[in-house]
C-alpha cells in the first residue's frame, strides 16, 4: 500500500484529499476514457455486422437484468461495509465485505454462463463485429469486476486475521470507490448493449 499521510495544514496548497484518494479519483477518470472508447467502438459497429448471430438472437434480457440487479445490490453492501469499519464494527465489516465479494462473484458467474450460452449459439469473439465488440466490452468490464472481487477478498482475509484496523478505513473507502465505479460502468453498458436491443427482442 502506498504512503498514507495526513492532509497538510495549509489547505490552499493541497486538495485536502489523501494522496491515495486523489490517485484513485484520477485513475477512475482515466478509466472513464478507457470504457468510453470501448463503448464508442460498440456503438459505431452497432447493427453493422455482415453476418449473424445478431444481438436479438442471443440476448436474454430478463436474465441479464437479474445479474445487473445483483451487481447493483453489491454497491449497497459495499456502502454497509464502509459504514461498518468507520464505526469500528469489524464483525459487520467482515460480513459486508464477504457479501459484496459474493454478489460480485454471482455476477461474474452469470457472465460466464451468458458467454458460454452465446458461444453455443455460435457467437464467438471472431464471428462478426457484434461478437468482437460485445465480448471485448463486457469482457473488460468483467475483468474489472474480477480485480474488484480479489481486492475485496484480500481485505476480507485481512479482516479475518485482524490485520486491518478501524483507522485504516480509507483502504475500504478506496476499494468502495473502485467498486461503485465498476457498477456505474455496468449501468452504462447494460443500457447501451442490452436495452438498446430490447425493442428488437420484444417484437
Amino acid at each position, binding site marked *: 500500500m502506498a504512503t498514507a499521510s495526513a492532509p497538510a495544514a495549509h489547505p490552499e*496548497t493541497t486538495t485536502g484529499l489523501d*494522496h491515495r484518494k*486523489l490517485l484513485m479519483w484520477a485513475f477512475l477518470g482515466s478509466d472513464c476514457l*478507457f470504457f468510453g472508447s*470501448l463503448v464508442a467502438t460498440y456503438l459505431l459497429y452497432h447493427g453493422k455486422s455482415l453476418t449473424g448471430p445478431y444481438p436479438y438472437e442471443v440476448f436474454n434480457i430478463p436474465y441479464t437484468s437479474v445479474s445487473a440487479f445483483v451487481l447493483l445490490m453489491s454497491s449497497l453492501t459495499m456502502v454497509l461495509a464502509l459504514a461498518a469499519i468507520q464505526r469500528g464494527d469489524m464483525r459487520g465489516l467482515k460480513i459486508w465485505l464477504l457479501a459484496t465479494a459474493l454478489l460480485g462473484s454471482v455476477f461474474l458467474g452469470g457472465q460466464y454462463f451468458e458467454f458460454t450460452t452465446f458461444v453455443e449459439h455460435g457467437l464467438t469473439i471472431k464471428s462478426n463485429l457484434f461478437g468482437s465488440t460485445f465480448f471485448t466490452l463486457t469482457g473488460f468490464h468483467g475483468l474489472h469486476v474480477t480485480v474488484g472481487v480479489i481486492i475485496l477478498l484480500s481485505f476480507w482475509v485481512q479482516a479475518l486475521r485482524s490485520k486491518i484496523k478501524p483507522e485504516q478505513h480509507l483502504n475500504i473507502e478506496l476499494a468502495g470507490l473502485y467498486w461503485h465505479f465498476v457498477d456505474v460502468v455496468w449501468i452504462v453498458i447494460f443500457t447501451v448493449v442490452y436495452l438498446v436491443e430490447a425493442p428488437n427482442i420484444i417484437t
Partner: protein
Amino acid sequence: MATATGALPRFLHRPTTYNGIWSWVVTVDHKRIGVLYGASALIFFLLGGVEALTIRTQLMRPGSTAVSPDVFSQLFTMHALTMIFLAIMPLGVAFFNLVVPLQIGARDVAFPRLNALSYWVFLFGGVLLNAGWVFGGAAGDGWFAYAPITTSTFSPGPGMNFYVLGLLTLGVSSVAGALNFVVTILNMRAPGMTLMRMPVFTWMALVTSFLLITAMPVITIALIELGFDRFLGTNFFNSAAGGDPILWQHLFWVFGHPEVYILILPAMGIVSEVLPTFSKKPLFGYPFVVFSGLFIGVMGWGVWSHHMFTVGLGAVANATFAITTMLIAVPTGVKIFNWLGTLWGGSLEFKTPMLFAVGFIALFIIGGLSGVSHASPPSDAQQQDTYYIVAHIHYVLFGGAIFGLFAGIYYWFPKFSGRMLNEGLGKLHFALMFFGMNVAFGPMHWLGLDGMPRRIYTYDTAMGWDFWNLVSSLGAYALGIGTLVFIWNTVATLRKPHDAPADPWDGRTLEWAIPSPPPIYNFREIPHVHARDDFWHQKYTEGADGRAVPVPRGGAHQPAAQYGQGHEDTHGIHIPGLSYFPFITALGLGTAGAGIALQQTASLAGVIVMAVGLLVLFFGAYGWAFEPAGPEE
C-alpha cells in the same frame, strides 16, 4: 503490515544500499529516477538519430539502394516511435521528476515506488518496442499504423505485435507517472505555494499529466482492438467483415493530437523558466502564459480530425475542424508574444540554455506558421502526406520540443550533476543544431510543395528532387555532428569534480535554493513560499524605479537561512524506503508482453515466456502490496 516482510525470502529483504549499480535498481528517489529517465531517453534519442541518418543517407541520392524498401519502412516507423515515445516524452518526464518536487518544495513525489515502477515499465516498454529488430523485423507500417495494413493479412510479420505490446506497456508507464504527478502537484506544494504561484514548468507538467491520463486510455483501446485482431482473430479492423478503418484513425488521433501537446508543453514550460532567468526579469504575463497552456491542453481535444482532412469526412466536418485548428493558433501566439515580452527590456545573458530557448522561439514560430497552411483543408489536400508535413513536424518537434529540452538539459544539468557543462562546447552544439536543423528541414517544405510524398524509399531523378534532398541530408549530418559535440561535452563534464554552485544562473525558483546536487531529502526544512519566484525575491527587491535591487547579503533575508539550509540537523526527515518490487513488477510486465508478442512466431516459447512474465509480475505486485511504504525500522 510491516511484519509481513518476514514472510519473504531472505534475499528480498528491504534493500539498504545507496551505492553502486544495484542502488539505482532499487532507488525510489525522484532525482535518481529522473536521471535514469533522462539517460535512457538520451540513449534512445541516439538510436532514433541513427535511424534518421540512415533514412537521410538512403534519400540523399535518387534511386539509392543503401537499404531495402522494407527496412526503410521499419526505419521511418521506428524513428518516429523512438523519438516520440522513447526520447521526447521521457525527457519531459525526466524533468518532471528532477524539477517538479524541488519547484514545489517537496521531499519526493506522492508515490515514490509507483514512480520507480513508471520508469522500469518505460524502459522495458522501450526495449519491447525495439525487440522487433531482433525477432524478424520491427514495426513497418508507420507510427500512425493506419488499419487495415496493420492486420495480419497485410502485415504477417512480428513487427506490429511488438508495436502493440510495446506501446501498451509504455502507456501503463505514462499513466502511472502522470497520476503520480497530478497527485504530487495538487497535494504536495509547500505552504504558500498556491497554484498561481507555481513555476510555469510545474504548471505545464500538471497540464501534460492530465493530458496523459485522458489521452492514453484511448490509444490503449485502439491497441487492444488491433492486438485482438492480430492475436484472437476479432474483426475490429477486418474490412472483409465490415470493420471500419476510420475507427482506428479517430481513436489514434483523438489520442494523437493531445499527444502533440504532451510533447511540446514541457518544452514550453522549460522555456518559460529559462527566459526569465537569463533576462533578469519575471515572466511577462504569467497568468496568460498559464491559461494559454491550459487552453491549449483543452483545445487539443477538439482538433484531431485535422489529421484526416483527406479522409472524406465531408465539407462540414472539415470546415469545423479547420476553424478549431486555427483557433488553437491564438493561445500559441499568446505564449510567443509573452516570451517576447519577457525578453523585452531585459538584460539578456546568452548562456547555452538561453540560446536554445531563443532558438526554440525562432523555430517554433516557423513550425506554427507552416501549421496554419495545413489547417486549411483545400491547401492541406496538396500538403498532406508530403515532405511539407515532415518539415512542419520537425520544426515543431525538433526546433520546438528538442530545442526546449536541450535548454532544460543545459539549465538543470549543474543542479543534478553538480558540474557545469562547458559553455564553449555548448555554444558549438547550439550553432550546429540551429544550422543543421534549418538546412535539414527547411528544404523539405519545398520538396513537399514540389510533390514529394512522405515515406517513399526512392525517387526518380526526373522528379527534380535531387538537389534539395542532398542538401537536407547534409543538414542531417550536421545535426549528427552537433549531437556528438553534446555527448563529448556531457561525458567530459561528468569526469570532472563537482564545481557547480547552488545557484549558478541566479535562478528564480526553489530548486536553486538548495545545494547542487541536492541532498537526498531536498529541503532540510520545507520552505514557506510568499510569492511567485520566491527565491528571486529572497535575493532581490524592486527599487522605486521598478528595477531589481539586490538584497544586502548577510541579512535576515539570506536565502540559505530562509530555507533552513544552514542547519546540520537532518534527524526526523522522512525518506521513502528503497524497494526491489517496482523493478520486479516491471520486469514481469515487460516479459509477459514479450511473450504475447512472440505468440505468432514461436507459439510455445511465447506461452512459456508469457507465463514466466506473469508469475514474476504477480510476485512483484504481491511483495509490493505487503511492503511498508516507509523506511525499514
